[in-house]
């Protein structure tokens, strides 16, 4: 009797989870926890706090996974509208921190509305394409482009180029998978290259500086270049096998800035070396491969483009972060998925993971 109950409970618990995804993310989380432990070892250890963040994230993921994609679609418009309205509020009455208006004060706490758009943006566009699936015309892509541009511009204006890129990318992936003609894609790339000089003049000074220091970090060794110089030293000195856990000098003598958040990869890389890096990249690759499989087998247009967009967003996070820390991508504030410390980013990731799982586990039901 009890056994039966426990069995049913177990089935209920796991029926909407995806085993491979869970396995891969668990491995990433373990690596992440150990790295956060090392990065914050010298003062104010955050490993436990990060574990709690993960548990909250997993709970969120489980809940989202229970919701079938059709129902998820209903959140698309309200969530998107809410996100854009909040972004407008930030634009009008936002709190300025370190020269950027990103936060909205609610009296007791502050929220960062751009975070909502990371999910709301692909959700909205996927819903939109799904709605007009049968009669998709070029004008729908134009409308989708507008839906993408507005929040993107608002976030970029804050200024928060990192989040703007992530939101914009998530939206673009949806449009791409929905079938944006190749001609248009090629045309956009050409136009982008042509517009680059004009964009350059529109960029903020600090953004320009970041691009310039990427080309030659030594031009500003104590300013903007410092982060990149110190993180590349950490990575390079890690060598093939790393200096060992808790033994990274760049980490523990505090040469790496933001070492438990955006630059956690430098910590990992210094202590684990090329071998560790390869394992990490393989884990991300597996995560992406699994996401692609889910997308390929998804039963509706919404599910397909949503799964594809989420999967490519994971890739974008991982690539931009590792590329930035190793000095081949400009410094933009992008956390490393499942590694960087931080509750909000982690919950957003798990939310996305929950959507992927929902798409995978509700597939059969739809087909029937």
């Amino acid at each position, binding site marked *: 009797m009890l056994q039966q109950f426990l069995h049913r409970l177990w089935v209920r618990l796991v029926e909407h989870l995806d085993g491979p995804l869970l396995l891969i993310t668990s491995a990433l989380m373990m690596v992440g926890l150990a790295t956060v432990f090392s990065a914050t070892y010298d003062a104010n250890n955050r490993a436990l706090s990060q574990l709690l963040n993960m548990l909250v994230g997993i709970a969120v993921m489980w809940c989202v996974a229970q919701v079938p994609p059709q129902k998820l679609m209903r959140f698309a418009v309200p969530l998107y509208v809410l996100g854009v309205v909040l972004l407008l509020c930030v634009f009008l009455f936002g709190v300025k921190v370190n020269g950027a208006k990103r936060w909205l004060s609610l009296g007791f706490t502050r929220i960062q509305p751009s975070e909502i758009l990371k999910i709301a943006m692909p959700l909205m566009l996927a819903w939109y394409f799904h709605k007009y699936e049968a009669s998709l015309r070029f004008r729908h892509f134009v409308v989708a482009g507008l839906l993408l541009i507005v929040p993107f511009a608002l976030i970029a204006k804050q200024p928060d180029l990192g989040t703007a890129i992530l939101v914009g990318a998530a939206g673009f992936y949806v449009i791409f*998978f929905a079938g944006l003609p190749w001609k248009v894609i090629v045309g956009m790339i050409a136009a982008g290259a042509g517009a680059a000089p004009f964009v350059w003049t529109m960029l903020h000074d600090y953004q320009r500086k970041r691009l310039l220091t990427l080309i030659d970090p030594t031009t500003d060794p104590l300013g903007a270049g410092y982060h990149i110089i110190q993180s*590349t030293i950490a990575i*390079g000195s890690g060598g093939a096998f790393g200096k060992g856990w808790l033994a990274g000098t760049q980490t523990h003598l505090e040469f790496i800035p933001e070492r438990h958040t955006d630059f956690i990869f430098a910590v990992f890389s210094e202590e684990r070396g090329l071998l560790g890096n390869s394992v990490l990249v393989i884990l991300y690759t597996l995560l992406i491969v699994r996401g692609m499989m889910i997308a390929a087998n998804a039963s509706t247009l919404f599910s397909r483009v949503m799964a594809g967009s989420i999967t490519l967003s994971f890739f974008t996070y991982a690539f931009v972060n590792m590329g930035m820390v190793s000095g081949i991508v400009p410094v933009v504030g992008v956390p490393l998925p499942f590694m960087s410390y931080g509750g909000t980013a982690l919950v957003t990731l798990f939310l996305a993971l929950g959507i992927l799982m929902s798409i995978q586990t509700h597939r059969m039901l739809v087909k029937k």
Partner: protein
Amino acid sequence: MRHSPLNTRDRELDRFRFRLAVASGAVLLAFAILIGRFFYLQVLQHDYYTTRAEDNRISLVPIVPNRGVIVDRSGTVLARNYSAFTLEITPSKVADLDATIDAVGQLIEVLPKDRKRFRKLLEESKTFESLPIRTRLSDEEVAKFAANRFRFPGVDVRARLFRQYPLGAVGSHALGYIGRITTRDLETIEKNEQEANYKGSDHIGKTGLEQKYEFQLHGETGYEQVEIDAGGRAVRSLSRTAPVPGNNLTLTLDAKLQQITEKAFGDRRGALVAIDPSNGGILALVSTPTYDPNLFVDGIRTDDWDLLNNSPDKPMVNRALNGAYPPGSTFKPFMALAALEIGKRTASQIISDPGFFSFGGHQFRDDKKGGHGSVDMYKSIVQSCDTYYYMLANDMGIDNISRFMGALGLGSRTGIDIEGESEGVLPSQEWKKRRFKRPEQQKWYAGETISIGIGQGYNAYTPIQLAQAVATLANDGVMFRPHLVSYVTDSKTGAKTYVEPQPLRALPWKAQNIETIKKAMIGVNKEGTGARAFAGAEYESGGKTGTAQVFSLKGADYRSGKLKQELRDHALFIAFAPADKPKIALAVLVENGGFGAQSAAPIARMVFDYYLLGKLPKGAAPEDETVEEEE
């Protein structure tokens, strides 16, 4: 034609999967680039980045070595180090210097003179250097500041080694002093490729032995390797290379003799150089007035500096090396020796002195009216007969004189082991050509040779040149380079390195000629111009008095009392003792001292009495007005 819904669906799915494949390809390509980047950083550039990481975390902190100690020939300490706490400010870390000094002044007394000195240091230094505002803090002051330290960022108490000269002003012209390193000193350090060794050093020898033997005295800077964090704070010590203390100098100088000699000068300006003729070691190097080198060690106060710099007595000038004076009659024994060596005179050759020597319609007068009568070489030296030497100079000619005197070292730097020597003037035809521009001035006139014979004219030599010359004579022509340092003791091995143990050259003088001159000089102290000063001496000594004209009286009577002090003649005396086997030779100069016998010779007597017998002469007053002088 429209496709069936199913057909459209399949086509769309195909298109979607194709795009997934394209995206997957892009992902793999991007990750491959990342792995390539990691391979480049972690394998190809690994060594470079390892070095960078090590450079980041390891800082070398220099440990300043103890400066070598300077002792005299018997071990009396002349320069040493002591450790003391100083209150120091790093200007670059302090926003408002005056306010900070005021606030610190509430805790620890900061006198106006300390502020002044700090200001002066500030002008001379870079702002990131830590500069002393107060030195020699008491334990109580240190404790008081330590308790309040958090209030004063950029202000610190440090334990530092200070240089101290226990005998104060005694021998300061020989010892010199150290001071804070300036940009010019840095150039010297760079030229000697000592930059690494001076990291952490604030002081360097500025003059005297402290300067000349700087790189011996300094020692080797030690290093502590410390691990530092990104904020520059030392986390732990990794390794330590102990500093090697500087080498110690043992001088040939006799501190007691030096002290007695300086005292003998009283408040008179002058110089004395006493040399051990057998090795060139300097026993006393006096230039009066002196100064206290201790004033310079932690930055000299402006008022002290003004006092030293503006004094008409010029205490900072080392007269023994830098001052060039006509030798006067002290030149005569060397003239006589030259005459014997060249064969222009024999010892017994007699001349008749009418009291003057006529040349080209001009009368060169002897000091003694009516002359000395019949004069041989002995008498010419003992009585200091001018006419004898007018004639001799005329007979020898300027070329012979300058050749002989040049070989004796007159008119060229002796090469003593401290800086600041001047060349003096050895008159010669060639010298005149160099010295003057117009052709009629460049020509040497035979009449100019006459007064050269009695040590006047263009003649000008430093006291140390005269001392070297008389020491060479006393040592039978074997000449040494005068030196202050006997040996350098290596602080690591204890090995002694002797300075100048070999003679410079041996002059090929005939023993018989040397004997003649020495005998005459002994006569000077027995029955001649030096007899009064050396009355009752328990040893036999040789000497020669001299008077150098400061002011030409053009034939008028010289009465010292009637002349202003600064126009009086300089008094000179050269001497050696004991006569048979000289242990000490010296040259004394008393500026504006009048006759040599009167003021210079008694100082020589005191030096000999102390050096040879260990006592001060009884009843030998430094200045005796009653002595009859004939020169």
